[in-house]
């Protein structure tokens, strides 16, 4: 008893510090690792930022770390990239393409996700199979036998309608909402390289190669699975009562979606928007295939800086800085939303 209230001198001297030390060491270790990773994250970014204020000489003559102390910073690279070089064109392209495609993907994707959560679907498997067979037949007919594509597609549509009206009625097997969702989300597994060749040929025929429209349409499709995957769980998480009472009052399904359901999942929607925006902003492969000069986006411009004399780091750094600065700013403010959005997606998967 007495010992507990007033520890002996021996305990105060030796045991107490020992306990403190036990708590202190792991804590120091924790901070050590976290600070180390902070450096791993920040140092490359710092180096890029610093390099963008260097001139050729300072880059070539070995590493200089601190502006004003190591070397004299110059705005020469910035001036060249922003005023003389055609940087603003690709920058504008990037903004237009990523913003518009993100908006479209979120709109189309959340509409589909909402319908799949709230309305029961019943799609005949036989009809889907018939559709795919006819689509393949059209491809073969046009590509291998040189049938004009309008004729082939009209014939295919006629056959499809005929099938639905006659034999199609006999099959009972149907796809449920879960199957449709799975199909939509599983499209993300497909590597874009498989689809990009035909998309390239398609846009070539439509004379839309190297336009913003081509990129917007493709990005919308590529990011649609993510939107469906995330928003589905947001919609499933909101109570249905509000929507039901609005429908009893005579509001149409579309109206309920836009005025009640969408505002309820606002924060999840922000996370989805942000995520898709980042993916579209950084996308490289599709832009590489589908653009040339006019509709070039920033990632393609950055990668094209590899000149015959080797990359000119000071110019490159300017491009990287202006590319990542806006996304980092926005994302830092919305970091919590994005984390929660990702978590919800991963929990329900």
């Amino acid at each position, binding site marked *: 008893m007495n010992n507990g209230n007033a520890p002996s001198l021996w305990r105060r001297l030796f045991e107490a510090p020992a306990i403190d030390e036990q708590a202190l060491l792991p804590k120091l270790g924790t901070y050590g690792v976290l600070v180390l990773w902070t450096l791993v994250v920040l140092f490359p970014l710092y180096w*890029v930022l610093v390099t963008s204020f260097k001139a050729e000489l300072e880059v070539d003559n070995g590493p200089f770390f601190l502006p004003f102390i190591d070397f004299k910073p110059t705005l020469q690279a910035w001036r060249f990239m922003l005023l003389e070089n055609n940087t603003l064109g690709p920058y504008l392209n990037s903004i237009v393409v990523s913003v518009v495609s993100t908006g479209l993907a979120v709109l189309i994707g959340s509409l*589909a996700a909402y319908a799949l959560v709230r309305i029961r679907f019943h799609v005949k498997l036989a009809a889907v199979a018939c559709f795919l067979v006819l689509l393949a037949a059209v491809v073969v007919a046009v590509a291998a036998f040189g049938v004009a594509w309008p004729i082939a597609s009209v014939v295919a549509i006629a056959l499809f309608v005929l099938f639905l009206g006659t034999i199609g009625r006999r099959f009972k097997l149907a796809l449920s909402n879960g199957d449709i969702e799975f199909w939509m989300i599983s*499209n993300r597994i497909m590597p874009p390289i498989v689809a990009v060749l035909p998309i390239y040929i*398609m846009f070539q025929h439509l004379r839309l190669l190297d336009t913003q429209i081509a990129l917007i349409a493709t990005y919308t499709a590529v990011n649609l699975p993510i939107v469906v995957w995330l928003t589905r769980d947001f919609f499933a998480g909101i109570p249905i009562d509000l929507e039901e009472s609005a429908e009893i009052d005579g509001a149409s399904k579309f109206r309920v979606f836009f005025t009640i359901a969408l505002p309820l999942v606002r924060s999840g929607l922000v996370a989805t928007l942000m995520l898709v925006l980042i993916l579209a902003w950084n996308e490289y492969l599709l832009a590489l295939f589908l653009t040339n000069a006019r509709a070039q986006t920033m990632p393609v411009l950055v990668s094209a800086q590899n000149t015959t004399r080797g990359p000119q780091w000071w110019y490159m750094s300017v491009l990287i800085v202006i590319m990542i600065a806006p996304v980092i700013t926005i994302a830092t403010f919305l970091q919590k939303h994005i*984390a929660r959005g990702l978590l919800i997606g991963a929990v329900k998967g």
Partner: protein
Amino acid sequence: MSAISLPQTESRASLSELVDQNAGRLMVLPATLVLLAFAIFPLLISGYLSLSRFALAPGGYKLTFIGLYNFKRLLVGAQQYHFLGTFKAMGPLQWSLFGVFVLLVLYWLGQFVVTRFSVVGFIGRLISASGAAGIVFLVLATIGTGGVPGTLVTTFIYVALGVAIQFVLGLALALLCAQPIRARNWFRVIFFIPLMVTPVGIAYMFRMMADMQKGPFAPISRIFGLGEWAWSTDPWSARFMVIVGDTWQWTPFVFIVLLAAIENQPRDQVEAARIDGAGGWQVFRDITWPSIAPIAATVVLIRLIEAFKIIDLPNVLTAGGPGLSTESMTLNSFIAWRTQDLGTSAAVGYLLLFASTLTCVSFFNYVVRRARRHQS
């Protein structure tokens, strides 16, 4: 006039009724059309391209149907060195390693047959098992014997090593950051940043960082006498750089999702265990890990799906070199496309689709599903 306007309003009313009755279909229609036009339709065309030879002809191009020739060329023909790699004869060590792996796989199959047999499940496991055995054989026959791995093996190296490193790092950082420490929100915001940076930018950034003559680490490398050494001339250091860039970008993704998951774990259980005197490792093993396992499995699945698509980093860092050593399958396909060899390009794309789908579906069935079942 009113006689004319009356049917108009009627038809308008019935139109909006029609729209409302079919609201569900109309809502799903745009997404379906977009996916059909940009995924299913291209997939079919690509399938046809992979079975044909593409040649420029006066006034356009010519496609000739050549059956499975493109695939044959990649798997056993002239392009085998590129896609599968250059083999050397396997010695007893390689064969015994392969034997051990095959035995492990057979044991796994046997377990399934004994405990809960189903025909579909068995066929699925047989396909996964032969795929895994094939990859292990390729790795042993190329890397294991001093041969040159092709793009298939390189892609699997990126996927397996990259995702494993990212997962371990992300989990460790999340566990550290979940502790009640000062400035944790600050760390969280900073750790999130690399996810925003474009992969092309990351590639150039790491090329700058790894420059042994004028990069920031040049003074250190000079001390070790590495000033003349270039990482880009050695296959493994070049591959390592690609993985470093990929890890720098994607560790934050694992980190941020797992951190949120750890914070959602049952806190009262953790406290009770702590009062009972459980150590950090015990708490992690018995409480934290079971509660985050399903999410961890899903995070790995998402990373697997995306990791197979890697092209930006190897293309900008090394352009696939030295030799073929950093060339991923997507880059392989892209290079074939650039040389007007559309058939090979599409065939490589299709093989990538098979490899990635097989891996991801296997992972989903055997790991993600099991992790979720254990929780519920």
